[in-house]
């Protein structure tokens, strides 16, 4: 469903992604691990369409279309969901309004009838129960004054309401204690399905104890330097990111030769 070929992207003339390849099929969960600054979040933002990043070359094919030419909202409506590393606070906009506007934007795109206030409330309350959010969070401004854990739960709530075809989770584990991590991971696991692809971006192996990926990719210097099964995450945990530097150096040598 998603095919990234030789993607190069930069921000303010600084190259971040330097030839990234990744192929995600429906039903697969791909974990992307890597040290800080390796380009993990850049990949997530480029997929979602943030225009601070410039795509210099490469291709991203999404459901047979050229993703890079799609506007931000079209990407979302066609089923790409980015769970933000730092969810944005929007004072004055109630979470209920935000969630319903998002759900209905996607439903319209799919040719489905929009949910009215009643149907929406019923639906959102069920989902909130699952992710452990109290009802009052519907009536508060989007993410405003939410704790780190509450913000991440809110992201998972959005994901379960929007039922994306491809979920990209950008360091959804950062800043979470172990209980919150479990809740978030449960929410994600519940959404695993044969039709849905996932990209789980994380710095730590910890999250992958709860969300067991089908594939693990190690990102370094803007490229994937090693891919493997879920055991790769454990190896990385054991050997540390110092090992990644060696891999990166080897690859560069290989590329030069």
């Amino acid at each position, binding site marked *: 469903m998603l095919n990234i070929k030789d993607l190069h992207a930069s921000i303010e003339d600084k190259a971040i992604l330097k030839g990234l390849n990744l192929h995600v099929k429906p039903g697969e969960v791909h974990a992307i691990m890597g040290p800080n600054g390796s380009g993990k979040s850049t990949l997530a933002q480029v997929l*979602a*369409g*943030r225009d601070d990043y410039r795509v210099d070359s490469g291709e991203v094919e999404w459901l047979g279309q050229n993703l890079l030419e799609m*506007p*931000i*909202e079209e*990407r*979302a*409506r066609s089923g790409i969901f*980015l769970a*933000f590393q730092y*969810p*944005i606070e*929007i*004072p*004055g*906009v*109630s979470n209920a*309004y*935000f969630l*319903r*506007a*998002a759900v209905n*934007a*996607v439903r319209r*795109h799919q040719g489905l009838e929009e949910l009215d*206030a009643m149907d929406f409330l019923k639906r959102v309350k069920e989902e909130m129960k699952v992710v452990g959010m109290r009802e009052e969070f519907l009536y508060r401004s989007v993410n405003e004054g939410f704790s780190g854990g509450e913000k991440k739960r809110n992201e998972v709530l*959005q994901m379960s309401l*929007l039922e994306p075809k491809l979920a990209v989770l950008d360091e959804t584990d950062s800043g979470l204690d172990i209980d919150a991590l479990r809740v978030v991971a449960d929410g994600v696991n519940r959404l695993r399905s044969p039709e849905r692809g996932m990209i789980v971006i994380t710095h730590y192996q910890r999250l992958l104890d709860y969300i067991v990926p089908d594939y693990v990719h190690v990102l370094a210097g803007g490229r994937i330097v090693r891919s493997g099964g879920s055991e790769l995450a454990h190896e990385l945990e054991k050997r540390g990111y110092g090992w990644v530097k060696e891999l990166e150096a080897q690859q560069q040598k290989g590329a030069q030769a």
Partner: protein
Amino acid sequence: MSSVQSWVNDFAARHTQLPGAKLAWLAAMRQRAIERFATEGWPTTKHEDWRHTSLAPLEQVAFDTQAQPVDVEAIVRELRGDEPGCWLVFVDGRHAPALGQLGALPSGVRIGTLADALAHEADLVQQAFGSETDGGSPAALNLALASDGAFVHLAPGAVLEEPIHVVFVASGEGAAAFTRNLYVAEAGSQGNVVEHYIGRDGNISFTNTVSRVQVAADARLVHTRLQQEAPEAFHLAAIDVEQAGKSYFASHSISLGARLARHDIATRFDGTRAESLLNGVYYANGQRHVDHHTLIGHAQPNCVSHEHYRGILADRGRGVFRGRILVAPGADGTDAIQRNDSLLLSRLARNDSKPELEIYAEDVRCTHGATVGQLNEDSLFYLMARGLDEEHARNVLIYAFVLEGLARIEPEAVRRRASHAVRALTPGGHLLEELE
């Protein structure tokens, strides 16, 4: 002929036909008022109070206070909708009883026109009328030429729950209206007044309006002004408030229309433990200009004033805010908060904000702050990454910016009107209905 001279001539031609012309005190005061205006003329940008607001475009237009009014029944009907209650309607400064209704009023509540009150209870009018020295020269011109206005009197303890709607319509091209409204809330009374200013798009009209408010001890008065005049109109408005001890006054100034809108809002605490809320939401697009000048006289100890003004400026739209707070010697325990925040939607939009705090007392809490910002890119991206198109996302953020100001308006029916008026400014505004 200069603009000033034409108004002086206008006064000469019709001062004998103005309401209460036979009252000696009023005739003399009007005479002094027109003399003051003739001497001072229109304020210029050299005047500190008018530094950012030029009246030059106003001076270039010839207006006619005697123009034949155009039929406005349809637009008044549209404004009223199916809201019951008390409606007092003025067209080009003249009372239009056929367009309004007073309904049944509780005892102790009197609502009528200034002309009527001058005919039947001139003494009551006199003590609330103000004088020619109040405010700037435009306010003096108002006093000289005011042809009518609303008169509301709440007897001690009288409580009016439903808002009183006062509608001012600029009916046609070149129409000029001078209205003076008196709101008197006696001890322990409660009331809520909404002034609507509307016109017809495309018409250059001129509104010069002064509202004088007296809030006696323990009384509570809420004043809302919904300024939605035509984008070509000139609107000069002043509110002067006197507050006794333990009184509460709120001004909600929702200024969305007019080419040039100027609001002078002043309140003075004459007793202790009085409280006032000055709240404003304004919007200027095109080359329009909205100016709020506030003055709070903390003359007595332990009074509270909160000011919150929020503006949205698009295109070459320009906002001005100047907030003076005077804390007199001995006014200890003063609690004053002042804020002016503006959102600029274009590179050429502008907001000038100037707080002026003069504090001569000890033990006071006075804070002020102003911000000027643009739409937050991260917020826009977040909304769009959830499937909202750019226009919807922008409208959500713009509306959310002023929502806090709208939320302060009471009661709910008035808040809904104000919110609706703000939403109507943007295409796709109906999508925001549930954002209240």
